[in-house]
C-alpha cells in the first residue's frame, strides 16, 4: 500500500487513535481442556494499553475446512505490555473459533483493538466478589489481576460443569484470590447453593462490589442480591457483533437507564455495564 496515505491516516489524527488493526504473531495455541484453547500472541505495544474487560476482534484464518467471514470478538484473557504479549481463552464453538484452533506458532493473526469499555473499580470498593461460570472467568482474569495489583481483596466463585471444566482457578489462586469452586458433577453449583454461598460471603466477609459476566442466571441472581443488600457491581455482556467499533449497531441490547429502556451497543457502550442497568435475556 501507499506509505504516504497510511502515514497521513495514522500520523495526523483529529482525534487520538485508540483502536488498531494490526497483525500479531502466534506464540502458542493449545487446548487447556476438551473445550477451551489458550491462545498467546506477540503483539505491538500500542495495542496493549488496554484495560480488563476490553476485547479484541479477531480475523480468523480461512481454509478448506473453515470459512469465517466476520471477525470474532474475544475478551482479553491476559496482557503484558512489557513482554508485548496478549492472550485469549476461547471455547471452540463454530466456524470462527474452529478456524482459530488451526493457528500454529508463527502464524499471523490480525486483530483489531483494544475495543469497548472495560471494568472499573471505584476507590471505595475494597472487597470484590467475582462470580462466573465456565469461560466467563476468562473475562474476569485480567480484572482479578488488576484488582490485586491495586491491593483489593478478591474472592472468586467459579462454577462449571465439572472439575475438568473449571478454568483459571489456579491462576486466580496465584494472584492471591480466594477461590470457591462449584461444579455440576459435585452437585454444588445449583442456584440455591450458589446464592447461600454468596450470602455467607456478604455476611462473614463483606462485599463492596459484584463482578460477573455472561450467564443470565447469574446476572439475575446478582441483581436480586444487589437490590437486597445494596451492593453495586458490573457485568460484561456478549452479543453478536460485526464491526466491534460502534458503526453497525448490530450488537445492541436493551438496558434500563434512568427509568427508561434504551438500546446500547455492547461493543461501544460495553461490553462492561452497570450491573443494575443490564436486562437478562
Amino acid at each position: 500500500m501507499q506509505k504516504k496515505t497510511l502515514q497521513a491516516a495514522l500520523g495526523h489524527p483529529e482525534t487520538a487513535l485508540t483502536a488498531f488493526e494490526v497483525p500479531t504473531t502466534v506464540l502458542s495455541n493449545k487446548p487447556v481442556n476438551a473445550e477451551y484453547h489458550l491462545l498467546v500472541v506477540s503483539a505491538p505495544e500500542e495495542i496493549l494499553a488496554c484495560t480488563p474487560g476490553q476485547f479484541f476482534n479477531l480475523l480468523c484464518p480461512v481454509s478448506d475446512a473453515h470459512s469465517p467471514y466476520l471477525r470474532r470478538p474475544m475478551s482479553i484473557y491476559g496482557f503484558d505490555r512489557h513482554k508485548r504479549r496478549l492472550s485469549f481463552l476461547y471455547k471452540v464453538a463454530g466456524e470462527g473459533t474452529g478456524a482459530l484452533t488451526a493457528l500454529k506458532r508463527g502464524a499471523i493473526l490480525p486483530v483489531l483493538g483494544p475495543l469497548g469499555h472495560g471494568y472499573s473499580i471505584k476507590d471505595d470498593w475494597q472487597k470484590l466478589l467475582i462470580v462466573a461460570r465456565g469461560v466467563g472467568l476468562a473475562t474476569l482474569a485480567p480484572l482479578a489481576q488488576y484488582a490485586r495489583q491495586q491491593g483489593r481483596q478478591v474472592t472468586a466463585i467459579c462454577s462449571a460443569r465439572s472439575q475438568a471444566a473449571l478454568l483459571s482457578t489456579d491462576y486466580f489462586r496465584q494472584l492471591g484470590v480466594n477461590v470457591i469452586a462449584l461444579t455440576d458433577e459435585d452437585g454444588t453449583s445449583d442456584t440455591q447453593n450458589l446464592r447461600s454461598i454468596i450470602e455467607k460471603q456478604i455476611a462473614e466477609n463483606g462485599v463492596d462490589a459484584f463482578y460477573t459476566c455472561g450467564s443470565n442466571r447469574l446476572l439475575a441472581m446478582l441483581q436480586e442480591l444487589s437490590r437486597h443488600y445494596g451492593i453495586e457491581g458490573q457485568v460484561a455482556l456478549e452479543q453478536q457483533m460485526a464491526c466491534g467499533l460502534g458503526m453497525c449497531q448490530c450488537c445492541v441490547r436493551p438496558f434500563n437507564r434512568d427509568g427508561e429502556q434504551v438500546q446500547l451497543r455492547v461493543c461501544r457502550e460495553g461490553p462492561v455495564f452497570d450491573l443494575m442497568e443490564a436486562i437478562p435475556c
Partner: protein
Amino acid sequence: MLDLSVNLGGLQLANPIMPASGTFSEDLADVFDLDVIGAHVTKTITREKRSGNPTPRVCEVKGAMLNAIGIPSKGIEHFLTHTVPFFNRYQAPLVASISAPSADEFARLCEEVSVEGVAAIEVNISCPNIEEDGKAFAMRPHTTSNVLNKLRQATDKPLWAKLSPNTGEVTEVALAAQEAGADALVVANTLLAMAIDIRSRKPKLGNLMGGLSGPALKPITLRMAYQCAKAVSIPVIGCGGIATLDDVLEYLIAGASAVQVGTATFISPMTMVHLVGELQEYMRTNNITSLSEIIGSVRDDEASDKPVMQEIGQ
C-alpha cells in the same frame, strides 16, 4: 501530478473512496484520520427517533453477511446538533443519508437536513413506501419519480439517489431518478436474503429476512452499476462488495465515477485507507494521471473470443 479527485455532479471529492451508509460513523475516527477518504456518508437517519429491528440483527453466510439492522435513528435533532458538527471538523464533505416512509415526510426531512455543513444528501429510497403497497420507492420507476420530484423541490444540495438491487427494473428506476433531478446514483443497497439455523430451525435474523452485503453481492451490483452507467448521464457511485483495489477498478472501468465501501470496513477497518493508497500507486505505476482514463473504459465490444475463421495460410 496524480489526480485522484472526482467531480460528482458539482461536488468535488479529493478521491473516489467513501464509506457506504450504515457501515460508518464517528467511531471510525478511533482507527484512522477520517480526512484520508473522499467523503463521509452517514448512517441513514429518520426525522423521529427509532429503535430499529429486533436482534439478532446480523448473521454470517458463506463469504458475506446479512443484516436487518433497520434504521435505528436518534432523529434529526441529534443529527443537526451532534453529527454535523463532529464531521465539520474534517475537510471531507459530509453526505447525509436520509429516509422516510412517505414522499412528503421524505421531502420535509430533506429540507431540514439541507443545512450548512451538509455537502450532499443521499436518499435511501430502498425503504418501504407506506403510501403505496409497502414496497420500497426504488422498486419501481413511478414511485421513484414521485419521491425524487418532491425531494428535488425540497433542496438545492446535490441529491444522490441510492437504488435497490431488489428491483427487476434497475435501469428504468435509474432513468426515472435522473429525470426527476437526481445529481448522482448510488448503485446499490443490499439484496434481500435469508438464512436459517438448521439446529433451532429459526431464521438467523430477528427480522426473518435481511440484506446481503459483502463480496457475494459484488457481481450483481457491478452489473447494475454497469447497466445504470450505460443508461444515464449523471455520475454513478458503485457500491456492493468492494474490498480490494481490483474491486474498485472493476467498478470504475464499468462506469462508476466513485465507490462506496461497506462491509469490508467491518472486516478490516483500514480498508478505505489502503484503497486510497493503492489506487494512487496503481495510477503511478500505470502512468494514469486522471481517473477519467479509467472510468467507463470497459471494452465491452471486445468481450467474446474471436476465433480465426478463415483457414490460415490458404
